[in-house]
């Protein structure tokens, strides 16, 4: 029998790994040229990518930015001696990009005329002949631009930890100011709508200690609804026309359009669907049978129906149920439908996060004496939402892209506009350039959301669990 005794007298020092396994060379060996087949596939794919990119560049890099029509584009391309299949006609984007962004929203011609010296009528006929295009964009559409800026400022304290907390005031107020900026009219309308929320808040604050949480929650919904239905209109009309009134030129919903319309509907749907989805997800887990049945019914119904049918309902059918003479804004109806649609999906995403939490978390919260709402707010939701971030952001992105479906009910979102632009004699026959531009707009927003969600996931990472 051989000797199995072994004793190490000296511990081994740490050594550098072999040079070929670390650094860029190591990475390439590991990931690109790991064996003969892998190397062949790498080479083939690189060739395919290079060919695709070169073809696209050949199509895309054309000196057609200033063309005034598709036929002019074709002449310019022919003059360059380009021999490819076809060339891009970017003149349509140059001509129509403001429209693709802002739709038919009326320019502030008075402001532009004050800046340029040209009369308001001249400005309206052809603004870019009198004022530099960036000025037209910034000042001509200042109401929408300001609305977007307020949106970002309002979201900053929610999205970024280091943003000053005082910006939360903007977070609370920007929805109302934005409505006023976008639709115009007296500021007292949105202000009175805001008062409804304040009343709801105080109803909860006052009733919660006296009558219990449930009654307080119900009353915090009932009080504002009463206010909005019966009182806020007359209150607003009392203040409207008084010296302390700010009015903007009213804009009708049919004039909304372009990417701004997509953003408006998308933002409302995103901001509305998350809280609504959380409530639905909690309702689905409720011990109260009726609440549970209602939530399950709502979620399954909405998820079982295509968004387009809901949009048709919003556009046509809803008027049947309204008292005659009510003018319920079409964009508002669409916003509500898209929000409800997104909320049903959100509810299922959040439910997934809730299901992933160990039961022990609920038990620990209970054992410490936290009540249901505190446990949800402090323990359950922060974790469930964190788990659900990828799903939540996917739903956000999906909803935002689904806003293009409103073109079906003849709202002028970018897709709707692209059809309208193509109906013009000058641009009849243009397809890819418009879609490429619209795709770029959507990609920038969706990709930003995706990157933000990854950043958030990394930031919220706490240890190994």
């Amino acid at each position, binding site marked *: 029998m051989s000797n199995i005794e072994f004793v190490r007298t000296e511990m081994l020092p740490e050594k550098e790994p072999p040079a070929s396994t670390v650094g860029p060379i190591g990475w390439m060996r590991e990931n690109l040229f790991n064996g003969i087949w892998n190397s062949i596939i790498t080479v083939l794919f690189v060739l395919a990518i290079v060919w695709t990119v070169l073809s696209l560049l050949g199509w895309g890099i054309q000196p057609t930015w200033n063309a005034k029509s598709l036929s002019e584009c074709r002449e310019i391309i022919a003059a360059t001696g380009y021999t490819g299949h076809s060339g891009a006609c970017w003149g349509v984007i140059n001509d129509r990009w403001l429209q693709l962004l802002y739709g038919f929203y009326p320019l502030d011609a008075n402001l532009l005329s004050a800046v340029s010296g040209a009369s308001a009528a001249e400005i309206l006929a052809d603004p870019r002949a009198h004022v530099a295009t960036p000025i037209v964009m910034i000042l001509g559409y200042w109401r929408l631009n300001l609305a977007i800026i307020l949106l970002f400022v309002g979201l900053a304290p929610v999205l970024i930890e280091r943003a000053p907390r005082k910006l939360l005031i903007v977070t609370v107020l920007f929805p109302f100011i934005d409505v006023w900026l976008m639709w115009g009219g007296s500021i007292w309308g949105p202000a009175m709508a805001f008062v409804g929320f304040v009343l709801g808040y105080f109803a909860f604050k006052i009733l919660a200690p006296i009558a219990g949480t449930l009654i307080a929650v119900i009353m915090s919904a009932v009080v504002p609804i009463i206010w909005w239905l019966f009182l806020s209109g007359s209150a607003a009309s009392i203040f409207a026309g008084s010296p302390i009134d700010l009015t903007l030129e009213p804009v009708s919903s049919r004039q909304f359009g372009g990417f701004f319309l997509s953003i408006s509907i998308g933002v409302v749907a995103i901001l509305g669907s998350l809280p609504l989805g959380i409530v639905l997800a909690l309702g689905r887990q409720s011990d109260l049978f009726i609440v549970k049945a209602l939530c399950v019914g709502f979620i399954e119904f909405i998820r079982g129906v295509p968004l387009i049918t809901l949009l048709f309902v919003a556009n046509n059918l809803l008027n049947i149920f309204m008292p005659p003479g009510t003018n319920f804004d079409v964009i508002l109806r669409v916003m509500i439908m898209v929000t409800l649609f997104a909320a049903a999906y959100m509810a299922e995403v959040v439910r997934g996060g809730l299901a992933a939490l*160990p039961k*022990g*978390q609920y*038990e*620990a919260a*209970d*054992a*410490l*004496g*936290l*009540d249901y709402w*505190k446990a949800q707010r*402090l*323990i359950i939701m*922060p*974790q469930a939402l*964190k788990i659900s971030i990828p799903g939540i952001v996917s739903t956000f992105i999906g909803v935002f892209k689904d806003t293009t479906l409103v073109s079906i009910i003849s709202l002028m979102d970018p897709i709707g506009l692209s059809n309208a632009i193509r109906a013009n004699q000058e641009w009849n026959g243009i397809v890819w350039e418009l879609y490429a531009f619209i795709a770029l707009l959507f990609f920038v927003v969706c990709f930003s959301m995706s990157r933000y969600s990854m950043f958030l996931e990394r930031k*919220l990472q*706490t*240890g*190994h*669990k």
Partner: protein
Amino acid sequence: MSELATAREIDRSKMKVSDEVAIQINNMNKWYGTFHVLRDINLTVNQGERIVIAGPSGSGKSTLIRCINRLEEHQQGDIIVDGTELTSDLKNIDKIRREVGMCFQHFNLFPHLTILENCTLAPIWVRKTPRKEAEETAMHFLEKVKIPEQANKYPGQLSGGQQQRVAIARSLCMKPRIMLFDEPTSALDPEMIKEVLDTMIELAEEGMTMLCVTHEMGFARQVANRVIFMDAGQIVEQNEPEEFFNNPKSERTKLFLSQILGH
């Protein structure tokens, strides 16, 4: 025979069982659906008692202590904790949960909060303690369980033994009058069991009323003033530890003890 939980002499000067009743359970029955898990449980726990509940798995010992803070609902009989009867009245349940701390087998720390936040959460939101005061209390108890330096880490960065000690500190921050332990060392590696037991022993030495479901018979022998043996949802035998281990009366107890101590 079982090893001892600690090599040192236990300081019994403050371990006094008072006449005041902490928990009173009368004829309590519980079913899971049609399965009768707890049968006619009668138990009186006085303030200052250290009770170890032992028994084979599935005997209902965890369910019993989980009934005491209403993590499980009983269907028959009364449970009176600290003078408050447990009914479906949420106010009573919340009141009892504020007075009763609990430690779980899997710690159940909140992974999205730091150790300090784990400890201050309930005092701030349930007891309405000012944040600063809650943090001082939390640091006091974290020092007591010997991990003040981990206060700003997250639970996922700590070892199992450290996590369980944090869980004990978290419960203590609510200044409970009764502590429930549901197999606090069962999920731990052997070398970490001792640090958790040491913490529990110190707690016992300060006179805390404790109910422990555990398989640590050394702890039962040295610290408990009463050992309860449960099987098939009922209390089969209870006695002082010395008698219980050296002179078990019931056949079931003898079998159980021979199985867990016999090697």
